């Protein structure tokens, strides 16, 4: 559940996002075997828009930006295809998170409801002994409802329907991205790790973390936060 390194920042799990953090919520109903692909499609689409090429700082405070490649991904269980950033590291990280979410959904014995969140944040360094603050500036929440289908015909319809739904979600995401609302200022070299995740070798997404919650059958949410390790330091 918790990664071995503790990130000593950020609000406690389940806390509301900061006031100037925009929050978007998407809802999908999918069959169990479609959960992973549907989540990956949404997360990759968001991260496509929230990743840049690697920065290379030069003297005089200028920097150049690397190139982001993209690739098409076909879904096996959904009549759908999406574009993701060409970065195996990023894909692996997302698959790991989504895999855990799917397993938690399955094993929780719940009625198949849960949500996965992708939060973009900035780090604000504080002096010792205070820990760094994480200030979220954008939060994407995907609410998932897992349905059980009785026969093959229903499954086939579900393939198509979920595909259409995901098309709508992509359009929604693009609408949000197009608003050109707050984005962190482009950082100087010393600040870049407070804004971007510079640990990947080929692309540079904004700092993000993924967490999820499973709603058990009583309707209470059991918070399971999975913390993303990003180049953090253990203060204290």
């Amino acid at each position: 559940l918790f990664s071995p390194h503790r990130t000593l920042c950020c609000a406690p799990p389940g806390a509301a996002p900061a006031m100037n953090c925009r929050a978007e919520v998407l809802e999908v109903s999918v069959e169990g075997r479609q959960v992973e692909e549907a989540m990956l499609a949404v997360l990759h689409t968001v991260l496509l828009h929230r990743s840049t090429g690697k920065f290379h700082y030069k003297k005089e405070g200028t920097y150049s930006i690397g190139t982001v490649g993209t690739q098409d991904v076909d879904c096996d269980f959904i009549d759908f295809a999406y574009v993701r950033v060409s970065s195996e590291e990023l894909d692996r990280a997302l698959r790991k998170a989504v895999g855990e979410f799917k397993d938690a959904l399955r094993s929780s014995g719940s009625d198949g409801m849960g949500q996965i969140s992708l939060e973009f944040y900035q780090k604000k360094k504080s002096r010792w002994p205070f820990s760094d603050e994480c200030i979220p500036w954008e939060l994407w929440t995907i609410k998932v409802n897992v349905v059980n289908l009785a026969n093959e015909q229903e499954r086939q319809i579900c393939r198509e329907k979920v595909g259409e739904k995901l098309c709508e979600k992509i359009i929604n995401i693009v609408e949000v991205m197009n608003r050109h609302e707050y984005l962190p200022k482009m950082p100087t070299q010393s600040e870049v790790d407070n804004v971007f995740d510079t640990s990947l070798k080929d692309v540079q997404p904004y700092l993000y973390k993924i967490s999820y919650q499973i709603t058990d059958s009583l309707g209470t949410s059991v918070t399971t936060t999975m913390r993303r390790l990003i180049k953090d330091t253990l203060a204290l």
Partner: protein
Amino acid sequence: AMDTDLSSQDRKDLDKFIKFFALKTVQVIVQARLGEKICTRSSSSPTGSDWFNLAIKDIPEVTHEAKKALAGQLPAVGRSMCVEISLKTSEGDSMELEIWCLEMNEKCDKEIKVSYTVYNRLSLLLKSLLAITRVTPAYRLSRKQGHEYVILYRIYFGEVQLSGLGEGFQTVRVGTVGTPVGTITLSCAYRINLAFMSTRQFERTPPIMGIIIDHFVDRPYPSSSPMHPCNYRAGEDNGAVYPSVEDSQEVCTTSFSTSPPSQCVFTVTKAHFQTPPPVVTDTLKVPVMGLAFSHQLSSSRLSYQPAALGVGSADMGYPVLFAGGLNAAHPHQLIGPGKEGGVPPIPSQPAHGTQADQERMCTPLDGVHYSAATPSSSEDTETVSNSSEGKCGSPHDLLETIFIRKVGAFVNKPINQVTMANLDIPFAMFAPKNVELEDNDPMVNPPDSPETQSPLQGSLHSEGSSGSSTGNTHDDFVMVDFKPAFSKDDILPMDLGTFYREFQNPPQLSSLSIDIGAQSMAEDLDSLPEKLAVHEKNVREFDAFVETLQ
């Protein structure tokens, strides 16, 4: 007045950004409709040539077409750059699917930083375009193109024309970017009503800088090479940046429609042209002649002269290629039947191509039901085929014949077994209403080919209709017989679909038929008393037998 606040360097930069943004937009859209998955690599070290920090390959012909359409201008108010995506069936009917519009409106954002913010937002907009091009209905259609239809694109500059999208089309906005000279808007209007229209064509006014591009990715069988060659041909117009094609080219194409299997279409082309060498681009490798069917991909192309359609035009429109349009308003149309012996002449066409002419070209001849497999052809072809009847000739004459073999004509069974109802033709709505059976079909006669008689051709001649063609204009005909797997068998001369249909409903086993069953039961019942009497007689033997078992 709008740009007095903009420094000249900024203005120059902005113009450059908009220009390259337009070019990249076209690349993304067209590449998303090629029918294959796109994959480019990220590179951490900036190469300096990747505009907007995105790895978007440049297909040279597409850039060329886009530049031609723009003709040095930039999108401005009232002057939008449009990429039209349409679908064309193997029967030659086409339908507009989407119009992607890059527009500029007057709303200026004077405060915005050109070199930084505008650039990054344009990059973001391209990412949105990458995402959105996968979610409109045409994407899935384009991934399945190849057999029954192809996806074509056309770039034009000027006023946006949405009338071809049918009723109730929907719009999706990809995004906007404000600049000091106006706001760039990128959107897509797409057809909702995907039911094919029964009318063949619809009137359109040719746009100002109309260019027709055909791009056809041939994918005949899933088992064939995973590469999907997109053959890019050089333009014949001046200043082509990529290798030009010789005037003489050999074109030889056949196309086999597996659905319905009863139809088999041959395109025979006068072998006047050499196949040009493949042009390999960065983006998509082209094993042009690698596939058995890939000769369909090669060949000449239409010239880029919208107006001048003369017999002299060397190229033949080709679906596979980036071929310029003869008629500015249309992607290529199918060509009419040739004029071999027994085939009624096509109404004569003027040498210059017009839309109306092309439409006429598509009209079926009396008593002939045909559908062309060649997804494209040129007006020239038609013109030239007219010329084969004694009109003007030229070294670049092309003659094409399309004929159709229908179910029953060449199959060893009486025609009356086959009714029109059995022909489940896709896009049947397009089938001409005055269809007639093969015995009236003059198209059955293939041209007199000097080449070896393929078995198929042999069967085409089975009705005794040997083409006694008119002399040596057809000497150079090359008919290539297309033999896809399971397609033909001399023993059982029918193709796979017919075979399947026939044997799908075998006659019932006699033992299962009710009459016979009832009969045997009646017999059994009648014989019962007799049998009982016999058994009673032998009861002692039975008892003894039973005792031995104990």
